[in-house]
């Protein structure tokens, strides 16, 4: 900042032509007549040139808005220089500004050219006077402005200059004051209009600063975002929530510099329901260097609802359409799948719809166009039309009849049954009629076929009747035969019983007399006689055994062997058997042993028959084992639930060949041997049969010379 050398004002004031009272009055009148600051300043400057000997002058006024002392008007100074004059008020040490705070004129002149640099007075002179526009000391406050004047020497300032400067100051202050008042009034009015304007907008509008504080909000926005203490709790809470949501949205909006559009869900503080807003946020400059955001909220809740409704309606429409289409397709499908011709006619009798079978009767296929077919189709059409006309002639809604049509291709007569029905619209007027034709050809054929089938069926029935009769006859025959067989079987049994009886009677005599003699009833016998009688006895007993065995076999084979199932503990049975064969064992030198597996359960079977089998097996073992051992082993297989009695001997054994026949009647390996031991040759045969009727079996393991093992297997429960 350049330095000005301040020169204390000197008295007496600047010499100048004295202005008279008249001139002063003129100036006052002129100033009062002027309402603008600049012309006022020009008037004063001109007046000073004229009456106070001023050569050039500049009026600078304080513009507190801009914080500057700026040129207002000049005389003898270029307008651009006036505009260019500007001093920052903040530079309080500047000599001119110091002058501004005082009330006295100050004379400046450069004591060297550097002193005024870089400050250049617009007056183009190194020496000038700075005259404040007020004569009252402002007490450090800035006065309204300064006059910079040249042409007054360096002496004291003329009294007229000071008077005019003060007058200008008063006038300017008055003008400014008035203007500020006017401005304020206008601003107030405009503000009112503006508020009216934005409040008239139902959409909430608000301006927020960079920190999100609300600077201005219209009524709509206030409703949403402000609530004082008097308002209800719910409402305050809703407002708090809205503020939170809104701030969050602003935070993102304030980032950029372009308007953003987004949707935001807020709460209606009065109603409590959710409102959907579209928020348009536009960043704006609110002060130098500070950015705010103008947000316009548009309630799109109803819009959204409406749009959803529209979408929903559209969807429904589409669905309905699809359904209608599907329905029609289905109907077409049904119509087309019906083999009977179906025709729809309008009230004028014109055919409007046909299914394929109908088309076959009433149209000529493109590829088969010929005169005959055309004629037949026309004939069919005439028959059909006349039939349908019946429907319209009467009151009935239905008409049934038979038509005789022609097959367009073959010309064959096609008898048809037809049913027509009126299709009524809502108000009862006819809209169409539907006719269904049914080909009776097939029915006729079916009737014939049915007759044929009936005839065949009757023939068949007759045949069945005959066959049944024959069958009955056969049955009767069979029944008679069965009866005869039964009788024969009974007779056979009786015969056998009789044979047995008849054989026993003489045998009884033989055995009886032999014993009478052996007992000495008829006197003493010689040794030879006794010997021979013993042989008679032995043979007689053998014969008896054979007779008994034969009787057994016969009974088993004829199924007349009675079975008495009872509880059986095998160990007890074996004890009994052992006791019975005791005399037999006593006559040998055999080691006889028995073994019993643990946990052999009781079985249910015919005790007498099991005993017969075991006795037989054991007797055989004893008979056919000259020396060595015989053992009986009882075992139980829990898996098969089967009990086994194994009779093993170390006897003569049985060859493989004989093993196959040994269970057959008289199948003993060597008849002579058997006889020698009193066997009948029927024992094993009976044993096997008995085992079978007890649901069991007998197996044999043997090698000649290495002994035999006969094993009887029995189920836990005989069936």
């Amino acid at each position: 900042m350049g330095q000005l050398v301040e020169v204390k004002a000197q008295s007496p004031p600047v010499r100048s032509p004295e202005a008279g009272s008249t001139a002063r009055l003129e100036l006052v009148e002129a100033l009062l007549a002027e309402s603008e600051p600049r012309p006022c300043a020009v008037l004063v400057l001109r007046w000073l040139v004229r009456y106070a000997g001023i050569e050039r002058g500049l009026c600078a006024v304080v513009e507190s808005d801009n914080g500057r002392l700026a040129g207002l008007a000049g005389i003898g100074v270029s307008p651009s220089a006036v505009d260019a004059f500007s001093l920052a008020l903040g530079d309080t040490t500047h000599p001119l500004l110091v002058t501004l705070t005082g009330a006295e004129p100050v004379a400046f002149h450069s004591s060297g050219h550097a002193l005024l640099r870089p400050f250049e007075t617009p007056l183009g002179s190194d020496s000038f006077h700075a005259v404040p526009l007020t004569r009252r000391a402002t007490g450090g406050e800035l006065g309204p402005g300064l006059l910079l004047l040249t042409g007054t020497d360096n002496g004291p300032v003329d009294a007229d200059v000071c008077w005019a400067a003060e007058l200008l100051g008063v006038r300017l202050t008055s003008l400014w004051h008035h203007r500020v008042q006017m401005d304020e009034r206008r601003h107030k009015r405009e503000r009112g209009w503006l508020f009216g304007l934005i409040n008239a907008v139902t959409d909430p509008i608000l301006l927020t600063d960079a920190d999100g504080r609300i600077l201005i909000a219209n009524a709509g926005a206030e409703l949403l975002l402000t609530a004082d203490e008097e308002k209800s709790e719910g409402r305050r809470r809703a407002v708090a929530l809205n503020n939170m949501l809104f701030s969050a949205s602003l935070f993102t909006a304030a980032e950029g510099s372009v308007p953003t559009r987004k949707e935001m869900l807020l709460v209606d503080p009065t109603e409590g329901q959710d409102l959907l807003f579209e928020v348009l946020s536009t960043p704006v400059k609110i002060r130098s260097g500070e950015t705010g955001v103008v947000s316009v909220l548009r309630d799109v809740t109803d819009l959204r609802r409406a749009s959803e409704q529209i979408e929903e309606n559209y969807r429904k429409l589409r669905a309905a359409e699809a359904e209608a289409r599907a329905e029609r397709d289905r109907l077409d499908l049904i119509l087309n799948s019906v083999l009977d011709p179906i025709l729809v006619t309008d009230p004028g009798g014109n055919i409007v719809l046909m299914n394929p079978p109908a088309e076959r009767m009433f149209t000529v296929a493109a590829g088969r166009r010929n005169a005959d077919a055309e004629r037949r189709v026309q004939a069919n059409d005439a028959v059909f039309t006349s039939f349908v006309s019946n429907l319209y002639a009467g009151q009935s809604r239905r008409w049934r009849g038979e038509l005789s049509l022609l097959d367009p291709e073959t010309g064959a007569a096609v008898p048809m049954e037809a049913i027509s029905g009126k299709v009524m619209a809502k108000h009862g007027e006819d809209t169409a009629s539907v006719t269904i034709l049914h080909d009776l050809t097939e029915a006729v054929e079916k009737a014939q076929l049915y007759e044929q089938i009936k005839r065949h069926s009757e023939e068949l029935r007759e045949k069945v009747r005959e066959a049944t009769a024959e069958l009955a006859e056969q049955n009767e025959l069979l029944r008679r035969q069965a009866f005869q067989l039964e009788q024969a079987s009974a007779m056979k049994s009786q015969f056998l019983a009789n044979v047995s009886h008849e054989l026993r009677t003489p045998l009884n005599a033989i055995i009886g007399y032999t014993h009478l003699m052996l007992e000495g009833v008829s006197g003493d016998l010689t040794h030879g006689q006794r010997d021979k009688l013993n042989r008679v006895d032995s043979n007689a007993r053998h014969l008896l055994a054979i007779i008994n065995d034969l009787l057994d076999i016969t009974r088993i084979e004829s199924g007349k062997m009675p079975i008495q199932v009872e509880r059986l503990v095998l160990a007890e049975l074996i004890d009994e058997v052992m006791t019975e064969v005791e005399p037999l064992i006593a006559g040998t030198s055999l080691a006889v042993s028995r073994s019993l597996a643990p946990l052999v359960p009781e079985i249910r079977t015919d005790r007498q028959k099991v005993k017969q089998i075991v006795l037989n097996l054991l007797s055989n073992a004893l008979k056919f084992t000259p020396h060595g051992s015989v053992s009986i082993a009882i075992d139980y297989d829990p898996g098969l639930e089967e009990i086994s009695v194994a009779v093993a001997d170390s006897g003569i054994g049985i060859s493989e060949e004989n093993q196959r026949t040994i269970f057959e009647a008289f199948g003993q390996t060597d008849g002579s041997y058997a006889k020698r031991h009193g066997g009948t040759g029927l024992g094993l045969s009976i044993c096997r049969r008995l085992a079978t009727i007890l649901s069991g079996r007998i197996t044999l393991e043997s090698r000649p010379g290495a002994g035999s093992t006969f094993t009887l297997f029995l189920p836990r429960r005989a069936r």
Partner: protein
Amino acid sequence: MTPPLVLIVDDVDHGREICAEYLEFRGFRVATAVDGLEALDKAFELLPDVILMDLSLPGIDGWEATRRLKADPRTRDIPVVALTAHALASAHERAKEAGCDSVVTKPCLPRDLEAEVRRQLAGRARVTEGRTGT
């Protein structure tokens, strides 16, 4: 003491003969009958100690005769031993049903027959003792 009297009923001569001869030989008194009717007459007349009854008899058969004997208070307690050449179990059952005290199948050894007679006599003795005791 008089030896026990055994009434032997059999239509077959040798059957009757073997029994009679053997039992006499063994010290019994013996009476015989050839059919059911005679058996009944002899039984009522002689009141034997034991009756050996063949079942297949002409006229009144053994079963019927036994039934009648067992139905009569005079002869009800006399043991009847059925003798039969019928080996089938059904014949035995029928005999028991008719009232026979035991059944012996023919052919049988005379010795075995005697044993059965003695068994029946012993049984009867026990029954009689029991009766007198009351």
